[in-house]
């Protein structure tokens, strides 16, 4: 049990509410090195969180905490694939994030062909562009399109909010080539798959080397 068990995001009706709650959660967790270390170190003992720790075409992630009501998940994102970052995409859920290490140029784009379904590069316009550095944080809704051009050693805390749609979308012509997608054990490449125990251990070592956990 920790203070995280008392956090509820499922009932947030607006992104403004989610921003308010998640900002305080992210700030507190970023400053709670003991809890952060514990959440990373206990992943191998929790098959659910090990399965939710993933290797994706954009980056690796560790599943640090899953809310009992499934209203949110806290992740740690790391090892960005710098050659794959250009693809504009949206998410099935709102999320909030806080940069722990490294940084990136973040481009939020608005859609010009409506706010649901597929979009191409012709259907998006730049809206908000920021330079994200350690300590900065923001919240993004599920209808916005974005790109995070991360520097190689970037590590972030990430809160996935409640699911708002069934499918996410991306600009097909800028999707990274399949050769760059993660594969494991000779299996087919996929956009995202569970991390192996060895990959988890590599991620943990990466965080230790950057003094982000004990």
């Amino acid at each position, binding site marked *: 049990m920790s203070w995280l068990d008392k956090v509820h995001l499922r009932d947030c009706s607006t992104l403004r509410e989610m921003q308010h709650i998640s900002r305080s959660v992210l700030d507190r967790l970023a400053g709670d090195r003991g809890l952060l270390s514990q959440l990373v170190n206990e992943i191998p003992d929790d098959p659910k969180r090990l399965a939710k720790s993933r290797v994706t075409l954009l980056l690796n992630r560790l599943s640090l905490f899953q809310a009992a009501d499934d209203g949110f998940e806290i992740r740690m994102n790391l090892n960005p694939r710098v050659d794959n970052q250009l693809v504009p995409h949206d998410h099935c859920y709102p999320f909030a994030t806080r940069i722990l290490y490294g940084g990136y*140029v973040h481009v939020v784009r*608005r859609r010009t062909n409506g*706010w649901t379904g597929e979009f191409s590069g012709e259907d998006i316009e730049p809206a908000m562009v920021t*330079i994200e*550095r350690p300590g900065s944080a923001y919240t993004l*809704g599920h209808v916005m399109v974005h790109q995070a051009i991360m520097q190689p050693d970037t590590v972030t805390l990430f809160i996935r909010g409640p699911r708002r749609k069934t499918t996410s979308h991306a600009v097909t012509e800028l999707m990274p080539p399949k050769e760059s997608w993660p594969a494991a054990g000779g299996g087919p490449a996929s956009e995202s798959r569970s991390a192996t125990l060895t990959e988890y251990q590599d991620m943990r070592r990466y965080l230790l080397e950057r003094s982000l956990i004990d």
Partner: protein
Amino acid sequence: MPSTPPSGTIQLTDKAVPLPDFVRRLLGQTRAPDDIPRIAQEEAADWLLPLTEALLSWLRERESDAPCGVFLGHHCAHIPLPSADGKGLFLRVPLRSTWTAWPIDTTTVVLVVAGEVDVEVYPNQEDLRMGHPQYARSFGPEEVFATHVGTVCALRSRSTSLQVLATPRPGRDSTGIRPLPNASALYEQAERSLERILDGAR
């Protein structure tokens, strides 16, 4: 589109306020989905004190009785600054800390010099009216953002905030603005804020 600045009302010294070079790249970003400004992390730090010193120097050296072109808009006062390369450049000083819609009719880079600015982006005007953003972020000192034409956004500048706004061309958006004839108190307020930043850094 930006309106033409009122002729003969803005007299600036020859000393241009220097901006970090990444501002040029942010202002030059096109709509192409693969056009991302390349900005190294080191560039994004350490611009606050040089900019503060330059602003303070300009404020102290300006002729106090010269017409200044200060205007009000979106609950903020905007002080025109001297620019080296034809950009529009303004020091924004909030008059009230309240949410206000900010129509973006030209690409604008905002450099936060002091205090905090909250920004929200909405899919459309109806969501703006209902207070349902799809992007929310607070910006503190030495943080920067660019907004592009057509973005539906609102901002709330804390009363302690000071921001430098850069646009590709001189002029200003013409929505809801009016001139501020006597701005001496505003200059003093800005000067005190800048002095506090430098005092804190010593």
